[in-house]
């Protein structure tokens, strides 16, 4: 009885990122922002970013509680998309979600994800895929301007 296989998922870098997440907090006067919620665990994350006039992400931050996977994923996502154009960021999001779903992806594409590619083993832990994809989903919502969640009537 041991936790060796767990190291596949919780690589050192993930736990380091989770314990010291980057780009936390809120951007002042953001051009875009969104809230995402994982109803299965109750995690809530709030994202803000600033786009310049060329639609480049000049600043991005997140705040909120979550498990190691969602914290590390948010930290790594914000690091890799900072400085990218909106188009590039959306492309990265697509690569990440394909990776998480176990769809085919080229090594070249994977490299584009930077540190975030270490989450490739998430597939072997199906119950945790949502934790990893939550912040990428937030990125899509934030950039593509999805409507805010409305209260039910």
């Amino acid at each position, binding site marked *: *009885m*041991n*936790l060796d*296989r*767990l190291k596949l*998922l*919780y690589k*050192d870098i993930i*736990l*380091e990122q989770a*314990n010291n997440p980057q780009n936390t907090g809120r951007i002042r006067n953001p051009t875009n922002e969104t809230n995402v919620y994982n109803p*299965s*665990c*109750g*995690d*809530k994350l709030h994202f803000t970013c600033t786009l310049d006039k060329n639609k480049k992400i000049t600043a991005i931050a997140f705040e909120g*509680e*979550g*498990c*190691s*996977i969602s914290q590390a994923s948010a930290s790594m996502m914000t690091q890799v998309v900072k400085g990218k154009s909106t188009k590039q960021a959306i492309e990265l999001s697509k690569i990440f979600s394909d990776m998480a779903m176990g769809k085919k992806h080229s090594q070249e594409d994977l490299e584009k994800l930077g540190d975030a590619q270490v989450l490739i083993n998430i597939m072997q*832990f199906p*119950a*945790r895929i949502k*934790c990893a994809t939550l912040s990428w989903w937030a990125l899509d919502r934030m950039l593509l301007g999805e409507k805010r969640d409305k209260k039910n009537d």
Partner: protein
Amino acid sequence: MNKINNIRDEFPILNRKINNEPLVYLDNAATSQIPISVQNVMREFEQTARSNVHRSVDTLGNIATAKYEESRNLVKELINAPSQNDIIFTSGATESLNMIAFTLGNKIIEKGDEIVITIMEHHSNIIPWQQLARKKQASLKYIELCDNGELDLADARTKITDKTKIVAVTHASNVLGVINPVGEISQIAHQHDAIMVVDGAQAVGHFPVDVQKLDADFYAFSGHKIFGPTGTGILYGKQKLLKKMPPYRFGGEMIAHVTRANATWAQIPQKFEAGTPNYTGVIGLGAAIEFLNQIGIKNIQVKEKELVKYVLPKIENIPGITVYGPKEWAKHTGVISINLAGIHPHDVATAFDELGVEVRAGHHCAEPLMTDLGITATVRASFDFYNTKADADALINAIKQTEDFFNEFR
């Protein structure tokens, strides 16, 4: 007690492996496992007597109806209801609670009235009342907890007033593992002429329940949590209230007469069971109750207490553990909610799963309670009578290994 020792053979799933480790099933509060004997009863019925109930004059129809009604009788005896006509079959505790809110609740609640629930309710005993209160401009009030994780009875006395029409309280919490004094709360509710609704989803099957002693006006629970099939549930109601209660759904089998313009209703309880019911499920539920009776609810209660007495102090002794709800084992059901310092419940549950220990991590459909506790989630281990001390040891070991694994990186 011997019966209990061999009982694991009735649950073949307990012999399976999870991630190459023997399964340690500690998610009984979510759903309990189903014994072979119950499955056999359902299979045999399907193979030899499957037929719709209450509809036909043929032999098969009669057998099916008799078995279906026998289950009603078994439920009646299980909770000591005055009559089997007080028992309505539903799809689960959720439907039972919705049924009261949207039939009788809808009829009696008016603007300015109060509905009183507790902060430890499951969403299925919150949202129906929330919706009803909003629709009727009534107010929804919450009875709070004491510092020790038990319900604050003094607060119940101030929250329940002459304006209160309905009080809805869980018999046992699916998060805190605490048993609420529903008998006393019933008395308070009745002093103010309010209707007392009890959510028994975490109570029935774990300790004896007597709806007459509790003086509950309504009592709701689910079949899948008492070793029965999914899609079965029960709503007990006092006859005088069921008479006032409008039907929930309309259709076949719930009518007396139908004309082009109008319809009159069948007798209680058929009035509340429109359409073809989950008859095989209900027959399985009856078998589950017979299984419970064979083992004896008191024996189950003793066994669960033994396990909690064994495991709770051990958990509390592990550094970095927070236990929610009462700290004394004697006040605990088999439900134990914890957090490990600095480790998110989802990470804990993934680690436990690697070790074959199946628990639930999340808000357990009790978000308002989580918010009050200042957390978003807990890890919940829930024991049933077929669990063993070895299961308890596996849990303790899993907690320690998980702490070691994650603490290495701090």
